[in-house]
């Protein structure tokens, strides 16, 4: 009897031990997240001011200034990529869900998966050749175009996944009213999956907001603020990259604060998608 219970004790102890080990490993895995947050707060907080959001950078050597140019630039680029990328992504997603298992759908699905895995620097290069070279200069157009290519597959796949969850009986209800398939899909099915589709778009935006490589030689940068869609355009990630590697202390501070703001925005986008998905499920 006694022996048995002591063996029980050993088993219990080893259970706890393994559980503790697993928890420790899990925390190790997500520790970088907290370090990043903590470090960004420590380094970036000091530079957080009204001026950061409203002023353009000062020349090297002068104190003060902000990243207003990069913030507006990023907003413009994200706006442009949404305008190009979302309709295309939605169309792809809807085509995939309509064509289901046909050969065209299979091909489209493979292409979209491949597009997801194309390194973003290559997408930048493509946009450079296709937009920057013919337009003879860096522009918001080129940057927005490159980012939209990053967005399309994300929006397409998430839209397809969401539409797959809609039962066939809902499609049939629409068809039985004497409506063509495309009208049923766009006007009757899509409104029912609004939240899910929005989630996909926000996730794509969160991803794109931090993309640096596709912007390096498409939108490039500027330090004056918005000068039109055909002019070089600054963005948070590119400016963070440039300023963080500079020798100017003020600029380096701007880079840290910019990184803090960027992470905060991405964090918020993710939070909103969480709330949206919880509401639909």
């Amino acid at each position, binding site marked *: 009897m006694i022996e048995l219970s002591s063996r029980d004790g050993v088993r219990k102890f080893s259970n706890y031990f393994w559980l503790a080990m697993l928890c420790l490993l899990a925390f190790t895995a997500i520790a970088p997240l907290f370090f990043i947050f903590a470090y960004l707060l420590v380094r970036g907080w000091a530079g957080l001011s009204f001026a950061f959001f409203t002023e353009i950078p000062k020349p090297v050597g002068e104190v003060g200034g902000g990243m207003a140019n990069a913030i507006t630039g990023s907003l413009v680029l994200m706006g442009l990529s949404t305008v190009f990328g979302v309709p295309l992504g939605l169309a792809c997603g809807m085509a995939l869900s309509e064509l289901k298992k046909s050969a065209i759908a299979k091909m489209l699905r493979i292409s979209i998966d491949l597009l997801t895995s194309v390194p973003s620097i290559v997408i930048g290069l493509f946009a450079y050749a296709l937009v920057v070279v013919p337009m003879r200069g860096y522009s918001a157009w080129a940057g927005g175009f490159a980012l939209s290519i990053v967005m399309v597959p994300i929006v397409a796949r998430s839209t397809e996944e969401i539409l797959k969850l809609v039962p066939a009986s809902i499609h*049939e*209800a*629409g068809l039985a*009213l004497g409506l063509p398939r495309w009208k049923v899909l766009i006007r009757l099915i899509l409104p*029912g999956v609004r939240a899910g589709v929005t989630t996909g778009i926000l996730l794509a935006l969160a991803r794109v907001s931090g993309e640096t490589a596709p912007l390096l030689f498409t939108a490039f940068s500027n330090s004056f603020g918005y000068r039109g869609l055909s002019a070089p355009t600054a963005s948070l990630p590119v400016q963070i990259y440039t300023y963080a590697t500079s020798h100017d202390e003020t600029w380096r501070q701007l880079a840290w604060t910019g990184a803090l703001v960027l992470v905060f925005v991405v964090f918020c986008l993710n939070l909103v998608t969480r709330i949206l998905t919880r509401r639909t499920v």
Partner: protein
Amino acid sequence: MTEAIQKTVQPIGVATAALETKRLSAWFGDLHVVKDISLTVEKNDVFSLIGPSGCGKSTFIRCLNRLHEETDGARVRGEVLIPGAGKRENIYAQGVDPVSIRRRVGMVFQKPNPFPGLSIFDNVAAGLKLAGVVRRNVLEEIVEISLVQAALWDEVKDKLKKPGTSLSGGQQQRLCIARALAVRPQVLLMDEPTSALDPISTARIEELVMKLRSDVTVLIVTHNMQQAARISNQTAFFLMGELVEVGPTKSIFTKPKDSRTEQYITGRFG
């Protein structure tokens, strides 16, 4: 007046047919599930289809609004005639657009299937709105009439902006009936519309079907013999894809001609 003219032009009986099938067959791939069905449904009939599970009732009525062909591998042969502009028209004739047929032959499904994300009002208005009716007062009027017809108006008139999916199962089914009625079909197909509902909702829908018959011809699939007896004036008995017997409901239930019909309605098989 117009009826009198029609009667002089066409032989009596044909003039009033709301729907006629001629040697209608349907397949899923190689599976022949509806076999050579020929039957006539008169105008303002409530026509019930009975038969054991899997005998092809759903497939048959899904052929009548050309919905069967939307399934992968599905195939149809034969004719379905419905009155069109001035004369009868085969819905499977070459060049006929299934979309225009479905506007004239409506359908209510076994499980309530309101459009998620659309309000009660928009659910009922969907067919009209997407067919190009934009005048708000016209839409409002038809939505109200349809909801009244479907015996749902009193329960929803104060919450037309609420999602259709927020209603109870029985209310959702009546919403789906209102939605089908709003496009003013000549024929309404109902596939076991009350099988998922409680007795009270069932009674309301039965009542509604009996009221509807003055405006629209109803074909209803049911597993409930009492229901068929209560609401229909014509009944067809299907078995393994074939039409065994068709006739006035009373005589099918009291003196069936075929022994298989008798066995089925007395509950000896099926």
